[in-house]
């Protein structure tokens, strides 16, 4: 398992850097939205929590699309399926690797982008907290979607279509945490719900994803 994790991380760093790029996309969304929407600080402050979460979600999504597809195309997935590691473990490790190269850096850099979008002061802490609690769910749900579409060429957009509705609860609770935090209100309910989603997704989806991969390989 550790070998798989290390390999995936190494591939992410070597192949044009899955690492920097998730971040870069997040940054670009945070830059593009003010360009499109216009510069008034009040409007931006209002939409900042939502946009930051949507940006994080899209950054995850984009990098997700080939989480299994590359391994499928070059035959590695066949070999992994016949290896001593259970396929559920493979899914979990790959989702974790994806989180390490996308979710984690996103979380760490989000406060900087909060400045760009004029996020009100108390929101920063909750922005980081909600991303830390929510991005693992994004990775796992995404891994499930990637497993469903692994045999399909040009599956990228189909994957988005399948995964985005699954992201809705995470997005709502995540953005709600930030919004309430920025307004100085009580955040514990949405934060707990967010953590609950993450825990549930982590516990269950690797099994569903492994089942989908088995179906796709045959």
């Amino acid at each position, binding site marked *: 398992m550790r070998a798989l994790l290390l390999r995936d991380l190494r591939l992410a760093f070597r192949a044009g850097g899955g690492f920097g790029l998730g971040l870069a996309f997040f940054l670009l969304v945070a830059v593009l939205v003010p360009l499109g929407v216009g510069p008034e600080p009040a409007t931006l402050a209002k939409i900042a929590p939502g946009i930051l979460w949507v940006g994080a979600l899209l950054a995850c999504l984009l990098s997700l699309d080939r989480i299994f597809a590359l391994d499928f195309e070059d035959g590695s997935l066949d070999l992994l399926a016949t290896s001593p590691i259970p396929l559920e473990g493979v899914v979990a490790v790959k989702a974790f690797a994806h989180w390490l190269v996308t979710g984690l850096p996103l979380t760490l850099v989000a406060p900087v982008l909060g400045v760009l979008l004029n996020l009100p002061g108390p929101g920063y802490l909750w922005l980081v907290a909600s991303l830390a609690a929510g991005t693992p769910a994004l990775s796992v749900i995404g891994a*499930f979607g990637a497993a*469903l*579409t692994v*045999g*399909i060429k040009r*599956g990228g957009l*189909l994957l988005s*279509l*399948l995964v*985005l*509705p*699954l992201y*809705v*609860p995470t997005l*709502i*609770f995540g953005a*709600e945490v930030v919004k309430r935090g920025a307004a100085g209100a009580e955040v514990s*309910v*949405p934060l707990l*719900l967010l953590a609950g*989603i993450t825990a549930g997704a982590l516990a269950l*989806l690797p099994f*569903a994803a492994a*089942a*989908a991969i088995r*179906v*796709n390989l*045959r």
Partner: protein
Amino acid sequence: MSLWEYANPKKFMQLSAGVLPWVGGLTAVCLIVGLVWGFFLTPDDFRQGSTVKIIFLHVPSAMMAINAWVMMLVASLIWLIRRHHVSALAAKAAAPVGLTFTAIALVTGALWGQPMWGTWWAWDPRLTAFLILALFYLGYIALWQAVEDPDTAADLTAVLCMVGSVFAVLSRYAVKFWNQGLHQDSTILKVGEKDPIAPAFYVPLVVCIAGFVLLFVLLVLMRTRTEIRARRLSALLARERLA
């Protein structure tokens, strides 16, 4: 005789061929009676004016949009557990029907919203949940179409349907949490409580609901029969090519 025997395609084709005319006739009767009654013979509401007439389309289609997904979930579970092909194909056949009902609920709701709320669309929780449901239907149908092998497609879509159901319920609670909303609560199941629907609307509404349920059954039966035939057709063509 066990219920599962109807999962045998031959039995299913025989049975459904016998049932179809009856279902078709009953559907036509219920829909015509319900809609004519609703459109021509109901009074205007004191607050909503003639727009109440939309309820006879909106509520039945909204109910069936949800029920169709539930039916797909059950069929998917049967397929995953007992591997009866007919149920997988029935789930496939139901999805476009469910999507159409969802679309009807959305369109009629929007047309209703314009006079009542002054806007076509509001981010009300129930409306939002329906939009998300439409997305689930779209994804489900797209996945069926994208996968070539029918059994593989059946397995994948069944898994998607199960996971999707969980997330659809989650989304429902999430959007409620996120916005209190304009849309009225469900009253249809609260007959006998205070402030029920007036009987003048209630009776034709029930007839319409029955009509939509029957229409759903009718369409799913017809489409399932077609799916079974299509499956057999492709098998025979494959054999011909090999021979």
